[in-house]
């Protein structure tokens, strides 16, 4: 097994590369009143609300997915019944940025 193996990046976002290369990356942050929301989850959903992946938010409220190219729904869950959604498109070699405000 490599170091990456199956473990999520600690806290959601720790990978420092700034280019997507062969990946279709979807990433972003969740903030509340300008402050990061560090307790919560980001979910990547496919067609028909199909669950694909989930990561805990990082200390900076960040999350990152390595998706297949195509259209996705991002859903954020946080304490207090917070449930937010945005539609996004992912492309190979491109980093799609998504920001959520609670």
């Amino acid at each position, binding site marked *: 097994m490599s170091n990456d193996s199956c473990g999520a990046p600690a806290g959601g976002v720790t990978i420092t590369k700034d280019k997507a290369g062969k990946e279709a990356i979807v990433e972003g942050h969740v903030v509340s009143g300008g402050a990061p929301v560090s307790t919560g989850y980001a979910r990547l959903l496919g067609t028909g609300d*199909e669950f*694909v992946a*989930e*990561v*805990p938010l990082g200390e900076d409220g960040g999350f990152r997915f390595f998706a297949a190219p195509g259209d996705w729904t991002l859903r954020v869950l946080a304490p207090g019944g917070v449930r937010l959604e945005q539609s996004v498109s992912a492309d190979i070699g491109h980093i799609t940025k998504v920001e959520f405000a609670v």
Partner: protein
Amino acid sequence: MSRSDVLVDADWVEARIGAPGVVIVEVDEDTSAYDKGHIPSAIKIDWKKDLQDPVRRDFVDKVGFETLLSERGISNDDTVVLYGGNNNWFAAYAYWYFKLYGHQNVLLLDGGRKKWELDSRELSTDVPSRAKTSYTAAEQDAALRAKRDEVIDAIGKRNLVDVRSPDEFAGRLLAPAHLPQEQAQRGGHIPTAKNVPWSKAANEDGTFKSEADLTSLYKEEAGIDFGKDTIAYCRIGERSAHTWFVLHEILGLPNVKNYDGSWTEYGSLVGVPIELGEGK
């Protein structure tokens, strides 16, 4: 086995924080999650550092497991309550692992860390100190673990349940979407496997679906024959441990194995059959 034998809710766990004979253990995909706050009195097991052999691709051996549990202060008679993030993904893996080495009293916190957090229950950063024990493990239970030759022989004979995402099953991705794409030499799935993504067994809050919904999901929707033996696999055996938990522990199917070599092994073998495309 049934749901009430293997799952407990958060109120049950809260009432037993610090209780003698009960050890709460966090096992997370994100191995740093524990350090940011955990259920009070919980200890941590790192799925990679603690449970994987550092050199060979395999689990720690029986002596290694005994050493680990002894050092963490877990006794053979203790009730171990496991929980983690991501729908208990890695906690279910640890549950299977504990069963593999013969620990009898293991439970999962339904909903795991996510539901605990979303319910705004107490988290602590205090790391408990537990007195060392002298733990004795059993030999690995071969009825729970499938190896590659057994999997190849099962094609067309037993249920093969591929619990990865549809994109991984079809061969479009080699790893879950929140991880870098790497590992197996080839994409696709084992011929005759049914694709039931592991996460379909969980509600959005991380709790397991009802027995009726789970039966419908695997039996009616996916066409899995509950009268046959079953092998579940994913990429490295963690997600399929979650499905093993559902089929074997909640629904009570008698002969279910987890193929922990999974796609990283199978997809790199020379000469084995591979199918591409959507599920049939």
